[in-house]
């Protein structure tokens, strides 16, 4: 098996947190192989450890045991080779949309490119998410959906090996979410990105992914099952609505979440 098929890798990963009540094992026995160019979604009930797993890939957390690799190298910490889109956009409020993206561009390409080229890259990233008109706006001057798009543009502008997204559209209304999902599909098709995305939305998972990774409930959550989404690309949400195979896949995920691993009422 070559590195393209195990581009991002987790082997026997276990994650425990030290809490006031002692050790809390969040993740146990996580094994996952992600190929280059693959779009993976992590789905599971709230609190099962999706964000924890994503943060492990990002290097924001270090596994308690086990190994994690990206592009053939062990993940030793965060780095701009893995672009992260945070759940709450995490734009710096004192920088404009341009400034927020430029900070990332400058960090990655500042040593090798001229200021003009850096500016060009920043503008291109904004154009990619259709926000050229908001270049000089501050985060508080734009809508939630636009902020999330700036967050995506910031992550993409670094030309990362992997794009990591933690419920990027979770806080948006249904129409904006659908619109951004369509945009994301186009961007990913154009950039051939490898993506790991956390979601709790079954439709979103089936629409976007090549493979859905379904997690069991915590504590000591693990990967319960994975589902190949063998729907042809490019996908169109309208066409899928009447596609029987789409509904089959969708009910597979629902079965996993609400029958096999139903969350007991807290």
């Amino acid at each position, binding site marked *: 098996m070559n590195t393209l098929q195990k581009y991002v890798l987790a082997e026997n990963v276990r994650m425990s947190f030290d809490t006031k009540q002692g050790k809390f094992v969040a993740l146990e026995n996580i094994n996952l192989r992600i190929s280059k160019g693959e779009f993976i979604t992590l789905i599971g009930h709230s609190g099962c450890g999706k964000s924890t797993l994503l943060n492990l890939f990002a290097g924001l957390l270090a596994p308690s045991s086990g190994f994690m690799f990206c592009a053939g190298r062990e993940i030793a910490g965060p780095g701009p080779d893995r672009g992260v889109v945070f759940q*709450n956009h995490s734009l710096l409020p004192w920088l404009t949309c341009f400034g927020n993206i430029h*900070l990332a561009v400058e960090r990655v390409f500042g040593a090798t490119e001229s200021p003009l080229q850096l500016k060009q890259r920043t503008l291109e990233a904004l154009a990619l998410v259709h926000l050229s008109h908001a270049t000089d706006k501050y985060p508080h001057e734009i809508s939630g959906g636009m902020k999330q798009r700036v967050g995506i543009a910031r992550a993409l502008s670094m030309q990362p090996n992997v794009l990591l997204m933690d419920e990027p559209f979770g806080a948006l209304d249904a129409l904006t979410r659908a619109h951004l999902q369509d945009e994301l599909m186009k961007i990913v098709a154009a950039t051939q990105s490898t993506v790991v995305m956390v979601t709790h939305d079954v439709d979103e998972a089936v629409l976007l992914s090549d493979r859905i990774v379904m997690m069991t409930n915590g504590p000591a959550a693990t990967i319960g099952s994975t589902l190949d989404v063998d729907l042809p690309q490019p996908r169109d949400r309208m066409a899928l609505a009447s596609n029987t195979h789409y509904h089959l896949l969708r009910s597979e995920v629902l079965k996993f979440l609400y029958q096999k691993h139903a969350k007991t009422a807290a």
Partner: protein
Amino acid sequence: MAIKLTMSGKFMTATLLPQVLGIALFIGLWGLIALTSPNLPGPIKTWDSAVELFSNPFYENGPNDQGIGWNILSSLQRVGIGFGLAALIGIPLGFMVGRFDFLDKMTSPIVSMLRPVSPLAWLPIGLLVFKAANPAAIWVIFISCIWPMIINTAMGVRQLPQDYLNVARVLKLSEWKIFTKILFPATLPFVLTGIRLSIGTAWLVIVAAEMLTGGIGIGFWVWDEWNNLNVEHIIIAIFVVGMIGLLLEKILVWLAKRFSY
């Protein structure tokens, strides 16, 4: 045009009217009390005295008799120097206390104990060490400014959202970039609050400090006029101190608004 007119009309009745009414009532009450108490000058007498006083605010009759303008400027200068020194030391110290837990634990008992002490209690120490009135007064201002500067700056650093630090970590920004692009702008509103509290306290304290140290300054001027039994001037001084304090506050609030996100 019509909208503008109704807006300004609304401003008149909603904001200006109650303010004017309040001031008029205050002056009326003052006049009434002055009528019954012969030692307290009334509004008209005080106004006449103020007109005379401010007709020549910058005269100089030797080192101990100078116009009110010079006295105000001297006090402002002391506040400026004392505050400047406190900011120079307090802001960097606040950043370090906020960033390093060890330093926080080291300094917090000292700060908590000394903060409630009236800055005037430090005046004798200042006189002892500096052997002169002017640096001693500046020293007292320094002491009144230093605590809010340290405490508010450190609070700003401590409340820095984890999200912003995660951005810094994902981008692997250098320490310098983290400071200039994240830590400093995120903390700035808190630093400005510290500055506002400092200047407010300093302006309260300077009058009392100058009463004790003498020299040129609005505080000593009040004391001097008391010795001359010139009560009109004391009342004028109260208004002047109040208005300058209000002005400083307004400027700093405006500044803070400009830097809030």
